[in-house]
């Protein structure tokens, strides 16, 4: 028999009372799904051109990655209002429908476009950091309007550190490292995902998102859950999270760059052999 009680024994602050705004929710869903349609069309076109359905698989994987949202919500204190919410699924709490296209775009679509870019072998660390900046902007373009219309909110015991327009900046690193790691793995170890292992790509966006979110977010997640923590503790947690995120991005840039150089040398050698032949 299922019984509901009103007490919680883990330290979890109470979110503000909010109602899901109907019109912004509908608008967000329409806009986001239109972007998804564009990504699907692009992936289908790539499939026809190259014979590889990888783009579609990654988009599906981005959708599956939404299963990490409830974990992020409870760890990073994200509140999706319940009254009036179009619920897509519920585990630790209900997850709104607009989240699904957002994850397809961010963890599937953007990852795929980035992978295609890397495979052109013109990668440089400078281009990488420009790409990261573009990803940060994409994240802000999605989140700031949604936060403005109160489709969700970040909360805590006190004030959430590093917040601009209701968006805590450490989430840029929590959100960005996952798709970049996903891309780096597919770029550097493509031979692994062949045969029966090709099916694993479907789960790669979720696994890398969940892993990076935990690794980067752990300091600030812990700090946010300390009742009555002074501001310096939450800010210190936020800074350490940003530092870990930066270090991971830097490491991934070096890994991708070294693999790019190796691939370039292999391509040059192949060209030379072809000329000699």
């Amino acid at each position, binding site marked *: *028999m*299922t*019984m*509901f*009680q*009103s*007490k*919680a*024994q*883990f*330290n*979890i602050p*109470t*979110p503000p009372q909010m109602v899901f705004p109907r019109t912004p929710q509908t608008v967000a869903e329409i806009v986001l799904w239109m972007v998804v349609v564009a990504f699907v069309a692009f992936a289908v076109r790539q499939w026809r051109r190259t014979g590889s359905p990888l783009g579609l698989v990654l988009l599906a994987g981005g959708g599956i990655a939404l*299963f*990490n949202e*409830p*974990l992020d*919500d*409870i*760890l990073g204190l994200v*509140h999706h209002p319940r009254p009036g919410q179009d619920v897509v699924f*519920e*585990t*630790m*709490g209900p997850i709104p429908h607009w989240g699904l296209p957002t994850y397809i775009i961010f963890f599937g679509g953007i990852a795929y476009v980035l992978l295609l870019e890397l495979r052109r072998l013109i990668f440089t660390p400078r281009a990488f950091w420009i790409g990261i900046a573009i990803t940060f902007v994409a994240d802000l373009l999605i989140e700031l309007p949604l936060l403005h219309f109160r489709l969700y909110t970040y909360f805590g015991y006190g004030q959430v550190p590093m917040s601009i327009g209701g968006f805590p900046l450490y989430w840029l690193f929590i959100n960005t490292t996952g798709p970049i790691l996903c891309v780096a*793995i597919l770029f550097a*170890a493509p031979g*692994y995902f062949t045969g029966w*292992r090709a099916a*694993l790509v479907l*789960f790669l966006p*979720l*696994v*890398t998102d*969940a*892993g*990076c*979110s*935990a*690794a*980067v977010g*752990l*300091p600030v*997640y*812990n*700090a946010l*859950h*300390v009742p009555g923590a002074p501001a310096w503790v939450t800010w210190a947690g936020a800074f350490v999270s940003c530092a*870990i995120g930066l*270090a*991971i991005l830097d*490491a991934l840039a070096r890994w991708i760059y*070294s693999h790019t150089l190796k691939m370039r040398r292999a391509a040059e050698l192949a060209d030379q052999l072809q000329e000699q032949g």
Partner: protein
Amino acid sequence: MSWVRGHFDLPVTPDGTQMPPAAQLVATVAMAVLVAGFTVYAVREIVRSRSVTLALLLIGGAISYFNEPIDDVLGLVWHPVVGQWTALDTFARVPLWGLGIYIVFFGGMPYLILQSLRRGVTRGQLWGWVGVLTVVDVAVELPILASGIYRYYGDAPLQIGGFPLYWIVINAVGPLGLAVLLLATGDTFSGWRALYLPFLPMMCDAAGSVAVGWPIFSALNAHASAPVPWLAAALTIAIGLATLDLLIAYAARMSAAQERTRAVGAPHVPQL
């Protein structure tokens, strides 16, 4: 089964449980002995090889204890609060005895695996290391669970002696992943970059546990019927094994390449 109806729908934690004093003392002392053993080994490494890697990784193992409260909330682990010698209180209070096992398992074990990787290992031998991690995990958890100083609650499937078996893969990915990372990065973490080392066990443990554990963590906290947690446990084990397989394939390739380099007497080990 009871649930907490709030912003998050979490199963109710076991109420009114008390930390058994004798068992707590025994576990804490046993863990202290293990930590002391690894500390002696770390000092020996500093004296003999001038390497501070193990010492910094042991500190990192302690820092990685910040992942325990996260695992507790997501994976439904309960440490009795009454009479507890508390090491940390963020999401929840976590006991001192656990600090020792984190130092050994997430700081010390990766170093032992790394030493083995540097000597050159095959895929089979690396799976053997997964076996070692499994034995260590089970050997620590089963007796301590029997003593009642912590428990897995909720409707956790696949339990033997109160230990849900999917935790074996959740726990194994972090230490193996760290060893592979250290092998792959060669001498990157030397000089001032050695300061990264204390943070790596925490990052690898947190990443491994949430990346592998998300299916069962989600299922345990959902109001799902019986087959769902079992399927989620199977998916967790599958993701864990696939992640270990990916790490092992990569590590075995690097280990073989480094062995070939040594065989031809090259002065520098290449980074792959």
